[in-house]
């Protein structure tokens, strides 16, 4: 849940900042709405793609750790 909120607010923040710059009206214009829609789509796809790379990377690390059987491996530690 915390992760979802992080993701959600990050998305809103980004798309709001990129799409909403005109404050001559109180409601969203069609243009702004379209922009938000596309920005959201893009962000989701971007997130998905990074997720795929991330999974691949983690698999690589796991394989390395398994073959080495030693190291603290993983993210920040360890020599390789």
């Amino acid at each position, binding site marked *: 849940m915390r*992760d979802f909120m*992080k*993701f959600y607010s*990050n998305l809103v923040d*980004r798309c709001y900042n*990129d*799409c909403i710059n005109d404050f001559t009206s109180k409601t969203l214009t069609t243009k702004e709405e*379209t*922009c938000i*829609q*596309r*920005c*959201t*789509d*893009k*962000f989701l*796809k*971007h*997130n998905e*793609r*990074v*997720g795929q*790379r*991330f999974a691949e*990377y*983690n*698999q690589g*690390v*796991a394989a390395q*750790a*398994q073959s080495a*059987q030693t*190291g*603290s*491996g*993983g*993210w*920040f*530690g360890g*020599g*390789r």
Partner: protein
Amino acid sequence: MSFLPFGGGGNASSQQINQQNIAMVEQEYEAVTETFYRIVGTCFKKCIPPKYIEGELNKGESVCIDRCFSKYIEVTTKIGEALAKKGQEAGKSGFGV
């Protein structure tokens, strides 16, 4: 959690191992999710021009994302190694960062 390299083993009581493992897994999970969100945020900013002509990722953006990811990992690793080295050198008396 197959990617976490904590193969069990050791002589301590199993309860101790479990508690230690849980704490380690939690920490690792935090670090991994944090890194993930950082990468998503950073690479989106660097690779996606804020024009939103379409909702799809185009070829250039996709390539950029892949490279941005790889480089982020590389930089994380490099800096981690540099810090570890510094820590070892300055280390014995205390970690002076």
